[in-house]
């Protein structure tokens, strides 16, 4: 199966170029190619998850290692990678399905699909790369296409949000490049597995470089002090792109790399673990509190993304602090299980909520919740799916969000972080309150004044929302042991057995 690994980068890149060259001749070619490409990648990822255990690696160019030193660029496929690839391609496919009717209003519709495909290529490349400089290159591919997609409607606020996003994004990329320079200076290699063998260098050097990486990727993942661009960019973007950015991009280019670098590349460090724990908790609380006061529905969802990502980072921080103190591995594994499950669940329900917001905006043209209302009867599918997503994100059983939040809270209790468990419950209550506001003002309040007749959205958009709503229910099955062992546990193992990464890749 190793030879199939490069397809994750080759297919989206090649189809982007085919769309760009031939798309002018054949109408709707971009849409068809993008859908086929993402469906294929989803199936391929499922095959990978079901068939192969352990770590696969692919040697780009086929240069053999010289002695102990890896010369070629490595592509690595392990449990964590597979989970992220599944999120990218599955959510990408459903969002692309939604875009088919949504993008009709744009004059440069063709370019939307080219950029979408490039963004997929960047994220796939980043997740699959075993080489730190290639992570930077693919990061820029994904980031540059997302900058353009945020401003795709070229309206006032979109351009402004995109400019802000770009300035902070460029700053983050420069810090990451600087950190890569330091790593190369210290170790003389760029391969993550090889770097982890070359370290440990002096503790101060590692702390400095970790700090640079944490700020850089924290900016990309919008963790608390670095979150200021996210509400603007994610709320201004076209709705399918908001769904991709919030549901997938911040995880693939932000959190994933933080996990990979701090677990598999650096040795775990008590200060960094504490920093991650504190930042995660703060973004959980502040994102939640900021979301309550919002009246723009997409802005509310964007702040909620910061809060939910805070849950994930906090759970990972709990696991990290336990591992640093040589505590019980089972509790650490439990915390990581909660974090990764919440990562998966969040990508489903948050993209569904953004698609719902997009559907409402598509029908009414209004984003201010005070002017909306009474849409439950006029848009039944949108209303019901968004109710499912809201219940799910607020942690109401039997939806998926309940189980992942429960596991995170239980992990905090078992690790004796009682105040963190309390805060997680409190923020969960806050989440319920702002999603009640979301539901009430959009779907149930007295009807707003609309210029035109409100209709349910076209079929592709409804189908996309229904699929995601079903996934919200089906992902609850992830807590069943046999399914959990197949999908989530390989990813948890990557984090728990963090020192085995280099031997697994290089042998």
């Amino acid at each position: 199966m190793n030879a199939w690994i490069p397809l994750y980068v080759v297919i989206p890149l090649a189809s982007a170029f085919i769309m760009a060259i031939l798309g002018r001749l054949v109408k709707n070619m971009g849409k068809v190619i993008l859908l086929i490409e993402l469906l294929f990648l989803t199936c391929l990822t499922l095959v990978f998850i079901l068939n192969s255990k352990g770590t696969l690696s692919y040697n780009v160019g086929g240069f053999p290692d010289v002695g102990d030193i890896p010369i070629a660029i490595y592509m690595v496929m392990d449990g964590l990678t597979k989970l992220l690839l599944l999120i990218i391609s599955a959510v990408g496919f459903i969002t692309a399905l939604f875009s088919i009717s949504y993008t009709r209003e744009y004059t440069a519709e063709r370019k939307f699909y080219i950029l979408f495909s490039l963004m997929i290529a960047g994220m796939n490349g980043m997740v699959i790369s075993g080489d730190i400089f290639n992570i930077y290159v693919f990061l820029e591919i994904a980031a540059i296409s997302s900058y353009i997609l945020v401003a795709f409607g070229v309206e006032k606020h979109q351009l402004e949000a995109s400019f802000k996003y770009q300035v902070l994004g460029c700053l983050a990329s420069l810090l990451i490049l600087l950190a890569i320079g330091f790593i190369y200076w210290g170790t003389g290699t760029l391969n993550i597995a090889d770097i982890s063998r070359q370290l440990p260098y002096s503790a101060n050097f590692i702390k400095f470089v970790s700090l640079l990486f944490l700020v850089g990727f924290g900016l990309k993942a919008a963790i608390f002090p670095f979150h200021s661009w996210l509400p603007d960019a994610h709320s201004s973007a076209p709705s399918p792109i908001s769904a991709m950015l919030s549901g997938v991009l911040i995880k693939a280019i932000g959190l994933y790399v933080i996990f990979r670098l701090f677990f598999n590349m650096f040795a775990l460090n008590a200060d960094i673990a504490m920093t991650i724990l504190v930042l995660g908790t703060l973004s959980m609380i502040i994102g939640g509190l900021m979301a309550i006061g919002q009246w723009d529905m997409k802005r509310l969802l964007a702040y909620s993304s910061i809060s939910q990502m805070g849950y994930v980072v906090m759970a990972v921080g709990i696991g990290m602090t336990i591992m640093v103190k040589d505590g019980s591995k089972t509790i650490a594994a439990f915390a990581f299980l909660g974090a990764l499950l919440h990562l998966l669940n969040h990508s489903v329900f948050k993209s569904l909520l953004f698609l719902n917001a997009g559907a409402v905006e598509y029908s009414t043209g209004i984003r201010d919740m005070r002017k909306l209302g009474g849409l439950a009867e006029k848009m039944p599918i949108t209303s019901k799916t968004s109710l499912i997503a809201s219940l799910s994100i607020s942690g109401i059983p039997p939806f998926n969000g309940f189980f992942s939040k429960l596991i995170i809270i239980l992990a905090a209790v078992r690790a004796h972080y009682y105040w963190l468990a309390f805060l997680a419950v409190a923020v969960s209550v806050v989440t319920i309150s702002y999603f009640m506001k979301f539901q009430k003002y959009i779907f149930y309040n007295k009807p707003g004044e609309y210029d035109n007749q409100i209709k349910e959205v076209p079929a592709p958009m409804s189908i996309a929302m229904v699929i995601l709503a079903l996934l919200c229910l089906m992902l609850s099955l992830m807590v069943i042991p046999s399914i959990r062992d197949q999908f989530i546990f390989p990813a948890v193992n990557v984090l728990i057995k963090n020192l085995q990464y280099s031997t697994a890749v290089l042998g």
Partner: protein
Amino acid sequence: MIPFILCLILFLIGLYGIITQKNLIKIIIGLAIMEYSVNLFLIMIGYIEGGTAPIFAEKFHLNNYVDPLPQAMILTAIVIGLATTALLLAMAIRLYRKYGTFDIRKINSLKG
């Protein structure tokens, strides 16, 4: 040591520009300065005093050649930097057309 300190100063000048300037174009210039300082830093990592070019020729000494890998990395980074700068400038021009100004204090349709 002095080149590294100068490189750090260049980095800080760029950062200062991004933080304090109110003009979109000046912010972009600040980013460009920062980018050059990072590129310069990576080039200096591979540099050896009195080293030869990493080309296999007559005067090539195995223990005294400049590391070519940072140079290859910087070529990639320069191309990426070109793309981001071009995109930033294009956005700045579009913003100027919509708002009629480059001043970020007047470009404020987003809040909260």
